[in-house]
């Protein structure tokens, strides 16, 4: 019962990170490679969540996906409402995690030597094959870092999630929200426990990122 917020947080963050990879990988590649006014605009928009207050972001999502919007009503009819469900928490986490991932993955794609892709072309490799055999492996380190960052950011989101998913214990109450709740209720012991767990998880994640970048750095300079 006490750990329900942890499991929910992990579930929400995992799904949000998966979505981030799915949408972010092709998007980061396009942003890094195609220089077009439209791309620049998309780049600016994708960075918006970094500068907007989480509550503002949450409010936008609420307006876009809530009962009062056609999109929200349509999702309701399909039986997959977003607002005030765990799916809403995923949406919130995904929105805040995406710009971090795009930055890291975009930088990784941008540093891949285009000459290597040219050589692969002359060796008969298709554009699709070049992405999988050359570009992606060479950008893997940055992409992995971005993925972990996205996961960490999802895990820690508070404001946006609260706006979109609310605070329903056992259903939408994630770790960050549960901590706030415990403090508000004066439940010091519960707050300490949750804070401890979240802190240790964050440290473990950061440690993993460092280890990984060390190993890769070692591989590329040995």
């Amino acid at each position: 019962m006490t750990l329900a917020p942890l499991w929910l947080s992990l579930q929400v963050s995992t799904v949000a990170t998966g979505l981030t990879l799915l949408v972010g990988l092709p998007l980061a590649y396009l942003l890094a490679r195609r220089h077009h006014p439209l791309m620049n605009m998309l780049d600016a928009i994708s960075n918006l969540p970094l500068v907007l207050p989480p509550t503002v972001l949450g409010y936008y999502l609420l307006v876009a996906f809530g009962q009062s919007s056609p999109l929200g009503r349509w999702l309701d009819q399909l039986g997959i409402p977003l607002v005030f469900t765990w799916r809403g928490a995923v949406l919130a986490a995904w929105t805040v995690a995406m710009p971090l991932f795009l930055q890291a993955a975009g930088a990784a794609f941008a540093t891949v030597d285009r000459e290597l892709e040219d050589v692969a072309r002359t060796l008969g490799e298709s554009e699709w094959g070049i992405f999988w055999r050359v570009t992606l492996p060479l950008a893997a380190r940055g992409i992995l870092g971005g993925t972990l960052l996205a996961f960490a950011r999802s895990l820690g989101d508070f404001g946006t999630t609260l706006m979109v998913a609310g605070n329903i214990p056992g259903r939408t109450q994630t770790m960050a929200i549960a901590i706030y709740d415990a403090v508000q209720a004066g439940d010091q012991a519960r707050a300490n426990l949750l804070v401890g767990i979240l802190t240790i998880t964050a440290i473990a994640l950061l440690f993993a990122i460092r280890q990984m970048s060390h190993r890769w750095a070692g591989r590329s300079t040995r």
Partner: protein
Amino acid sequence: MIEVCLRHHLPGFVLDVAFHTTAGVTVLFGPSGAGKSLTLRAIAGLFRPHAGRVVVQGDTWLDTQQNVWIPPQRRKVGYVPQHYGLFPHLTVRENIAFGLRRWPSHQRTARVEELLTVMHLRELANRYPRELSGGQQQRVALARALAPRPHVLLLDEALGALDPVLREQLREEVRQIQRRYAIPVILITHDVHEMAAMADKVVAMHHGRVIQVAPPEEIFRRPATPALARAVGMRNLLTGTIRHHTEDITEIVWAGGTLKVPRVPYPPHTPVQFGIRPEDVVFVREDRPLKAAHNVLTTVIVGVHPAAFDYIITLQLVNNASVHLYARLPHPLVHELHLRPGQQRRILLRRRAIHIFPPVEEARSSKEEGAS
């Protein structure tokens, strides 16, 4: 037979190149910014010009008039870029096998093994590119480019970054590859020594244009422009005026005297530039009878400078101190002739070694000719 004709407009740069070649090794020679790399990339299909035609061994890879454009994947080119372009995440063996993915596995293995042997890479097969020296990386890049049996091998300054001894060795290897696999090679360089060592045919380029297509001897002896002459070591570039012609000789007024040169078709009073290589400036042996009675000049030796394999002698005309000439002599001869600064010596400019550049209007039309 390789046929290349390209036209492309970029801001501040026009590429307008045409040449054909049947040579074993064709060298694209010119200063940086001449459009050599762009030309090579167009042959590889990595750059698509506005207009042009590329035909290699009977296959048309590009013909903008016929709307033909074959992507690089289907062109059968072996391409080695300036910094080799090895895949850092793959071993030597994996790099070489990269272009053989669609081959049956036993054939692929056999081909990779063959190239590992031919290129002396057997011991390095499982290393990563960063664990190799420059020369080894170069050989891996060559092996990888050759593996899928390309119809042409394109090398973009691929020998430039190595030390001189290694470069010499790799030049020989590229020549051997060319003969062994009977594959035409197109190589880019701005290094005159590399051009001389490698080329069967030279395509001299400048500012996006072809200025001369010729064997290296002709590029050295009869460069199309003074700029190319400077680049290939024709250090004595002089200016005179045509005086008159006799049967097979043209007389040129220069530095207060006259020079006899092989007949050229330009009318009298035409100002012309001409050049002579320092090797063709000959010191007159005063102890022997002099056969020629013309093109003999009296000079003062200004300096005797040791160069890598010989000496450069700087000279000044006695009757016109503003004219400087360079002579180039092998070591033993400098000692035999006791050449010292300050001495007065007579020199002979061999008639056949004097090269007259076409006057400017003519130069343009001969450019067109070279490009047709």
